[in-house]
């Protein structure tokens, strides 16, 4: 009985190791974080199974203490170097990384946590004009225009982009660090202007896609 069980286990492992190799290779070659849907389509597998294998591979890399890790970012998987290797790589690539100014970080944080948000709302929170910062963030493609708000003047509404998730290594927006609440007082701040409903946002996004 024991023997039979052992044999059977060996077989299953062989089958998955073949798939595992292919999945690993696909993620390796992909230029952008590779989605499980895409892998499932190519290998004709179930999405859930692909994900299971990916998470196994992820664990292996983490445990093996290698120079690269398999990370789940922007709803896909991507091989990335370990943070402790950054200095060496910076010398190799020689391109200076984009440095965030404090205004840029502040603004990006407000947009990330409060999206969809208009520029006026951000400026009220920051107490300063933020036009320049918005321009930079748009150019870096960290934020994008989601559409227009249905209030007088139809101001543009902004949100973070897929590149934002890639840049900060987040799987999705739920991976944003929780905001530190300083007190109950802070939470009952009246909303600035009416909320844009999710349905509305989706509608404007749809329109946007056709551009």
């Amino acid at each position: 009985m024991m023997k039979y069980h052992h044999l059977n286990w060996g077989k299953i492992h062989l089958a998955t190791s073949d798939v595992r190799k292919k999945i690993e290779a696909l993620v390796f070659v992909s230029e952008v974080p590779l989605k499980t849907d895409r892998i499932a389509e190519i290998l004709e597998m179930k999405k859930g199974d692909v994900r299971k294998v990916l998470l196994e591979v992820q664990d292996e890399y983490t445990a093996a203490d290698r120079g690269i890790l398999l990370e789940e970012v922007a709803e896909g998987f991507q091989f990335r170097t370990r943070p402790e290797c950054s200095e060496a790589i910076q010398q190799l690539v020689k391109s200076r990384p984009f440095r965030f100014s404090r205004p840029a970080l502040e603004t990006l944080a407000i947009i990330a946590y409060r999206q969809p948000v208009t520029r006026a709302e951000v400026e009220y929170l920051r107490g300063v004009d933020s036009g320049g910062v918005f321009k930079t963030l748009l150019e870096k493609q960290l934020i994008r225009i989601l559409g227009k708000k249905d209030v007088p003047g139809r101001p543009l509404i902004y949100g973070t982009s897929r590149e934002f998730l890639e840049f900060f290594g987040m799987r999705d927006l739920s991976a944003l660090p929780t905001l530190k609440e300083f007190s109950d007082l802070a939470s009952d701040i009246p909303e600035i202007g009416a909320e844009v409903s999710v349905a509305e946002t989706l509608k404007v996004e749809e329109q946007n896609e056709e551009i």
Partner: protein
Amino acid sequence: MAYEINIENFQGPLDLLLHLIKKNEMDIYDIQVADITEQYLAVIDSMKSLNLDVAGEFLLMAATLLHIKSKLLLPQHEDDESEDDELDPRAELVRRLLEYQKYKDAGETLSEMSLLNRDVFARKFQSQELVVGHEGDEMVAVGIFELVDAFQRLLKETSDPYIHEINIERLTVSDRINSILTLLSGKENIGFLELFEEKPERSIVVVTFLAMLELVRLRLVRLMQNNRCGGIWLYPAVANDEISPFELGEDSLGYV
């Protein structure tokens, strides 16, 4: 003032106020408005070469502080409590300060994360072969920046303008719209670059680009790309047999 403050270090009036409150070890819920206002005004006084726009924002806050202070000095009506519970004129300011502090901290937390191309790196392929589209590849809508990029690249490639040449026969946007539709008919998609000749004239590039945007606006064409760096493709937005060249007056498009 015992300490010097460099105004350049502050992102705005809220930032400066927070700094002053911390420096004085004040309770944020019990701001000594007189002290803070005095220090705040001292800082503003010391700002000499300040650009006007920033100064305006700092001055607005100064006015707000003085307004709060004056409100605090006024006697309160005892029998007036049926009004809103916001008896303390400082409440609104405190709320804004706390909210600002929250996002300022969040920004710092964000910058401590493992950032791509600073702390962590992913492989990048510049080679076009990997980017070329295959059937069934995931297509995403083209963003405005990609479109502008593509347009600018094209303009750089355009042939040198002839000097003193007068184009008698002007290519119109509606002409190009129809020729793009003709190109598209019977096809599943066409590449953005297929719209142009080898070395197109600048005017042709502009007119063609306008025609393409017009088609998108008319919902006849969708612009898609495989991924951020991929080529831009035009897809018919309606069933192929429905597209047929049609008459479009230049006037109706607004390019006369």
